[in-house]
């Protein structure tokens, strides 16, 4: 945990982003888009790469298995395409955008813990070719998502 927090604050200061100071602080990156089911997405041309957010991995705890989809499979916005298993629970991963899977992060098969240690970089989950570039507009920006997490935490 200490290492993770260090990582978080280092990334945070480097990228000039806000780190929530309530309880377990979560990192939210500026240039990404966020789904309300706690996936992040980075759009690069007609491709999108995504994973689960720092907030999500923090709530899940140690990730021990990531169920990845097959390359070539289509995914739709808001629908589950895989799952993340932590020591305490299972959580579906929903696709923040629609498209066709072009790459999956095979590293996660051997090292599922990358989702915890590096949720926005080495812990990415899949890359898709977008079928509807407009869909990303429905997602939250970093500011909205930070607020969303704070509100959700405050409820519990």
């Amino acid at each position, binding site marked *: 945990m200490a290492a993770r927090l260090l990582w978080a604050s280092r990334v945070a200061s480097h990228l000039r982003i806000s780190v929530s100071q309530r309880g377990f602080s979560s990192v939210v990156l500026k240039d990404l888009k966020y789904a309300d089911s706690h996936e992040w997405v980075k759009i690069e041309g007609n491709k999108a790469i995504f994973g689960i957010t720092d907030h999500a991995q923090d709530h899940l705890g140690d990730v021990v298995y990531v169920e990845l989809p097959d390359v070539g499979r289509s995914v739709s916005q808001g629908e589950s395409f895989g799952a993340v298993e932590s020591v*305490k629970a299972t959580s579906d991963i929903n696709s923040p955008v629609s498209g066709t899977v072009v790459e999956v992060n095979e590293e996660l098969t051997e090292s599922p813990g990358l989702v915890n240690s590096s949720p926005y970089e080495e812990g990415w989950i899949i890359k898709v070719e977008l079928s509807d570039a407009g869909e990303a507009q429905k997602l939250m920006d970093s500011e909205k998502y930070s607020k969303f997490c704070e509100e959700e935490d405050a409820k519990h």
Partner: protein
Amino acid sequence: MRGGSLWQLGQSITRRLAQSDKKAVSRRYFASDADLKKTALYDFHVAHGGKMVPFAGWSMPIQYKDSIIDSTVNCRVNGSLFDVAHMCGLSLKGKDCVPFLETLVVADVAGLAPGTGSLTVFTNEKGGAIDDSVITKVTDEHIYLVVNAGCRDKDLAHIEEHMKAFKSKGGDVSWHIHDERSLLALQGPLAAPVLQHLTKEDLSKLYFGQFQILDINGSTCFLTRTGYTGEDGFEISVPSENAVDLAKAILEKSEGKVRLTGLGARDSLRLEAGLCLYGNDMEQHISPVEAGLTWAIGKRRRAEGGFLGADVILKQLQDGPTIRRVGFFSSGPPARSHSEVHDESGNKIGEITSGGFSPNLKKNIAMGYVKSGQHKTGTKVKILVRGKPYEGNITKMPFVATKYYKPS
């Protein structure tokens, strides 16, 4: 064995990550949060970074600052201190308390030496388990037992109903519910050396399953050498007003090696030790024979019966049960409760009741029930997780060797 369903708890925490369930889950939390009971250590947990979650009507720490994996491993390397004050301690007193208890449980209570105890099962008329419980014979006229938090209301109602009938026939028994006390569990290799600093009694003479009333850290405690992790250790019933001081003293004497440990690691530890969680691995319709607890049915009780559901249980002992609790190793995602177990040809032979990733073995472990005949160690099975079959095989339990302190 120790109440509530951690799996459901984990589910509810994580499920709030999914938008579809968010409203329903929020409502449930709103409705119950204010009603949750707090143990004497609640503020202590919060001050130590405990993530508090609803569990069996209580607000309990699921973990502290350490990850569940680190916490689970630390228990076996050093030690863990758990607040288990949500569990219900109970004393039965009176000269007939032993024969009375024997009408409700499968243990040979009369045969226990004073100061010793055992795991037992409260049965219903059909031979199913109402709860499991660690019982101790303090004296011939005093039994001390601890029942699951999640089963408290139903257990107390059950005991009370039978106690009334027993007393109306002239039996001498009464009870006292120890709501004035708090239960702490100290587990792991440092449990005994650390606790020894806090008492003048010689703990090397107190073996697994034994009980003593003694002074610990300046207050009168009920001490049982038992636990729910497979490690050597103790459960300490301490007057609630002294609970925080005792917790502080234990952590201090261990020089930080014994750490506060939450329900998350407690579940991993008990699973590694092959111990049942009531509500998952044992339920109303499961008999102690099916659950692999035949050893807990006293020899005399097998001959005489005299407990609820004895006819069903004695018949199962004779003919063998139709299903049996077994352990599994599996590949792929960890198996969870309700995962189906299939034979190699794809026929359903059973179901997982608890499962997860073992932090100490670094692989998936699970327990569940399969049809008799297909329960042998080494049997290859397929375990279905989200509809996909994964390789598994039946294995002996405990998964991690137990280290109970027994006379050599």
